[in-house]
């Protein structure tokens, strides 16, 4: 029923949008000319992964994880009018992306265990990774103007990005991300999942002392979560390491423990399938409409914006409560409200721009096992008699709790001419400091193992051009005070602006959780049972960062080679 409703709503929306497009195109105020822009790119990217990272041996454990061949193009149609009408179609925009990843044919044996087909919406299969054929964006802009006001209504599938942050999503929570095949080497634009929505932009020249008053309203009936690589039983997809580690994870319990892999053997017996990760996404449609607003203005060069967004969490909140009864962990997407603010100001005295943003999200689902009740099972036949197993039986909490979370970020961008680095052009520098604070939260190794109350990160981003813009090097560095670094360096070369090639190296650095570089099993139980920390027990140390929990990225280094053609 849910599916049917979603399909009907989706079709109605698409139909209405298409109808409106045609109605406006052929309305009496029809345009007398149509300016068209058509351009795109073809590119091929090969990614090599050093599976224990450069810090544990340079390029010594290499495997190809991607050979993605992509075609992307955009078509923009702009009607030209003899007269300026109060309401007019400003443009129609279509963006298509198709891709084929040859790595699954090249390394069939490595990826043969990935499930072939997508079992459900938002749960991907190998076919989703191997090929893409997607009309990513399709929207129409309808503009209206009065003496000192302008309106722009954008209807259709589109991307909206909010805030001032680079490399973080603080306020920017409208479009979910597609992390299934491309995590590291892509533009934000390419990682975002476009959504069907209506977006209204309103501008007014001035209002009292406020300059450039702007208002943006969004209404989104299209509910989608972040997409991940197939969360199947082997989790062998190249970018499934987050879930691969999760599958090796042990469900904590005051008395007993069981790893997900062990549990899978149990569910295989009980339900005929290994433990499953199931997406539980609210249905699309007007009943679950996401909506938000941004209002912005300036005063003497100080620009500020206020944000509000009501929607569903894109990241999964993991619910273990039906593990025993169904053999499934559910990814819930709780409803939440975001209240945010951002600003920027050009500081002439230092020739730089200071910018920042902050927000409070009312309910963020975080792993919280407090109150979970267990059931002890005699499963000695399954695990060699080592342990009795405990499974959450759903009589207590779900395994996550909804917390109020504060995010903030401040950045500073400036350019400097450093002749010994680049005689012909300025170097551009960008620095950011990020802080996340979970309200009334106490980190607990056993019950709240993945998040500390405060998380800080610092970033630096540097770029310039050499050789008349033919060579464009970039360096991005992120440091987490939990002793983890992420670095990405790249250099792009183009001679004619059409053909280009690019090499990028991404690495995570620092001490792996538990002190090792390997993908060790994880366990919380030792602490509970009063046992000493073991080297392969990653979650008994202090290092809790997005790079180390629940997945251990510190053993990942990737090198990407790209060649492409723009037109």
């Amino acid at each position: 029923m849910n599916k049917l409703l979603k399909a009907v709503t989706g079709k109605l929306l698409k139909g209405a949008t298409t109808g409106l497009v045609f109605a406006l195109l052929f309305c009496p105020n029809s345009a007398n000319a149509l300016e068209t822009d058509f351009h795109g790119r073809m590119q091929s990217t090969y990614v090599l992964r050093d599976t224990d990272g450069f810090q544990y041996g340079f390029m010594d454990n290499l495997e190809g994880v991607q050979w993605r061949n992509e075609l992307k193009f955009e078509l923009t149609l702009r009607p030209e009018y003899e007269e300026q009408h109060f309401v007019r179609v400003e443009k129609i925009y279509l963006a298509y992306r198709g891709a084929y990843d040859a790595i699954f044919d090249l390394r069939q044996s490595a990826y043969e265990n990935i499930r072939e087909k997508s079992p459900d919406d938002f749960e991907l299969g190998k076919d989703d990774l191997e090929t893409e054929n997607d009309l990513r964006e399709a929207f129409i802009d309808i503009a209206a103007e009065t003496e000192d006001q302008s309106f722009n209504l954008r209807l259709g599938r589109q991307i909206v990005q909010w805030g001032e942050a680079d490399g973080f999503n603080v306020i920017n929570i409208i479009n979910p991300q597609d992390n299934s095949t491309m995590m590291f080497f892509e533009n934000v634009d390419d990682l975002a999942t476009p959504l069907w929505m209506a977006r209204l932009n309103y501008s007014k020249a001035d209002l009292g002392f406020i300059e450039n008053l702007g208002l943006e309203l969004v209404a989104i009936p299209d509910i989608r979560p972040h997409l991940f690589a197939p969360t199947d039983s082997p989790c062998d997809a190249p970018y499934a390491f987050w879930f691969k580690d999760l599958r090796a994870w042990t469900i904590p319990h005051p008395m007993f423990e069981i790893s997900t892999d062990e549990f899978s053997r149990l569910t295989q017996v009980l339900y005929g399938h290994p433990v499953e990760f199931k997406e539980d996404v609210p249905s699309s449609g007007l009943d679950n409409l996401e909506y938000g607003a941004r209002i912005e203005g300036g005063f003497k060069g100080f620009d500020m914006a206020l944000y509000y967004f009501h929607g569903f969490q894109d990241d999964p909140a993991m619910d273990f409560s039906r593990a025993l009864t169904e053999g499934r962990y559910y990814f819930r997407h709780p409803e939440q409200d975001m209240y945010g603010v951002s600003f920027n100001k050009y500081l002439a005295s230092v020739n730089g721009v200071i910018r920042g943003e902050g927000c409070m999200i009312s309910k963020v689902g975080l792993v919280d096992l407090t109150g979970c009740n267990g059931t002890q099972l005699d499963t000695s036949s399954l695990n060699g008699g080592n342990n009795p197993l405990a499974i959450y039986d759903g009589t207590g909490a779900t395994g996550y709790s909804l917390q109020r979370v504060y995010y903030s970020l401040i950045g500073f961008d400036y350019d400097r001419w450093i002749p010994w680095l680049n005689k012909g052009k300025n170097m551009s520098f960008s620095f950011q400091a990020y802080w996340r604070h979970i309200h009334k939260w106490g980190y607990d190794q056993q019950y709240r193992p993945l998040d500390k109350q405060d998380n800080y990160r610092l970033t630096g981003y540097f770029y310039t051009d050499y050789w008349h813009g033919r060579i464009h090097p970039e360096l991005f560095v992120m440091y987490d005070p939990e002793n983890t670094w992420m670095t990405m360096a790249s250099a792009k070369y183009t001679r004619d602006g059409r053909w280009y090639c690019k090499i990028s190296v991404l690495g995570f650095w620092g001490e792996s959780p538990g002190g090792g570089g390997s993908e060790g099993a994880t366990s919380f139980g030792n602490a509970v049972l009063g046992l000493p920390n073991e080297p392969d027990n990653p979650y008994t140390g202090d290092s809790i960062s997005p790079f180390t929990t629940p997945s251990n990225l510190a053993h990942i280094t990737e090198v990407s080679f790209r060649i492409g053609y723009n037109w």
Partner: protein
Amino acid sequence: MKFKLSAIIGLTALLAVAFSFQNATAYDPDWKEHQKELFEKVGLKPGEHIDENNWEKCEALLPSQMVEWVKKGWMDITVGEYKFDPSPDKKWAEDSKKNAGKYKLDDTKNLVDAVTGKPPKYTYGELFPNVDIKNDPDGPTKVMYNRSVALNRMGNYRQGSTIEWVGNKGFERVIEFKLYKYYFWSRPDGEQPNKKGLRYTDIIAVVRPFDLAGTAQLTIRKLDGTKDDLYVYVPAIRRVKRMSGANRSDPFMGSDFTSDDSNSWAGLTNSMTWKYVGTQTALFCLVDWALETTNDMVPHSDGSWSDPPNLKQGGQVGYEVEGWKRKPWAPATNARFVPRTFNVIEATPVDPFYNYGKVYFWQDQDTHFTNYKIYFDKAGEYWKSSIYYAFFFTWGDPYKKKMQGSNVHVFYDEKTEHATILHSNGKFFGRPIITEYQVPMVNQKLFTVNRLRTLTK
């Protein structure tokens, strides 16, 4: 500065007095006689050709750096003559006279009303019609203000443009963009509301190639003479980013061109200290058809004006001409050089972070059109030169407004031996590059940060 000093001093001595009190708004009924005198003075005839074999003929008639180009055979010169008076239209000249005594410069060298001491929200006509460039210490600055209004009288417009990378071996790559501009001063349709106190706003929106398409830069130039507000919409992150307004001397997208180089000078007038160097007769570079006719804009029912359907070829550079033997960036077969009277003005940046050292502007005394710029680095070494191919266009009823513009910019960096070419009118690889004035969609409401977000994608 390696001017041929003897030549400059000699010519300057003769001409300085005559032209130091310049009526830069000159509408010249005796233009033919004046042109004839200039030809006699330089000893050249229309149709004459100068190259590496007789380069001495232009020795005192171009910046010395460009004389070297002729001497080395990098470029050649075909002399032409005007068939009409190249001065601005008569009404502009008359309106300019009304501004005598109306304006002055404040302590920051920003233009203000002489009575109120505040920047004018609207002006029409040259701001200092009787400026004494030689004896008034602020004379060169005032001339630059005159220039800024004389060459920017289009009100609002939309224009296609290219930036081409050209090495000594030929064409390398191109970026195509659209320029949207809204001037508050010197508008043909009179004063418009200007609550924010702006001089102009513009948007540069990249059209292709794909990896840059959608990038749009909004510049807000204020009347108070402070640095610009600058915002860039970056399609890769789908966001508008606030940028430093002081980076106008940075290479634009890695080219040899900077934002301040647009139309010879698009910087803040009070960001430079201007100094009069001299007045001399020299050869003015323009496209061949501009000697005989103007580009007559065509009116449309919405009140806009656009290039005529039979679009004329813009100034060509070497790589556009098959079989061209000289430098691929050099003015080529349809370039003509006509003797004119120039003011040479030296600009020294006030901002210590500005990328250039001194820059020398070679400016037509009548039209203020800067034909050549010679750039030095901060260490005082010669760096690069630019040539602004000129043409004229007319529009408007009942009288025709006439203004000089540039349809091709040429920048050659002698240190890196690399050039950048901008085409902003004419044809590029057969594709028309159109300019449209007073287009309704280019109105004040277009130039807001909020609007920038939906302008491209």
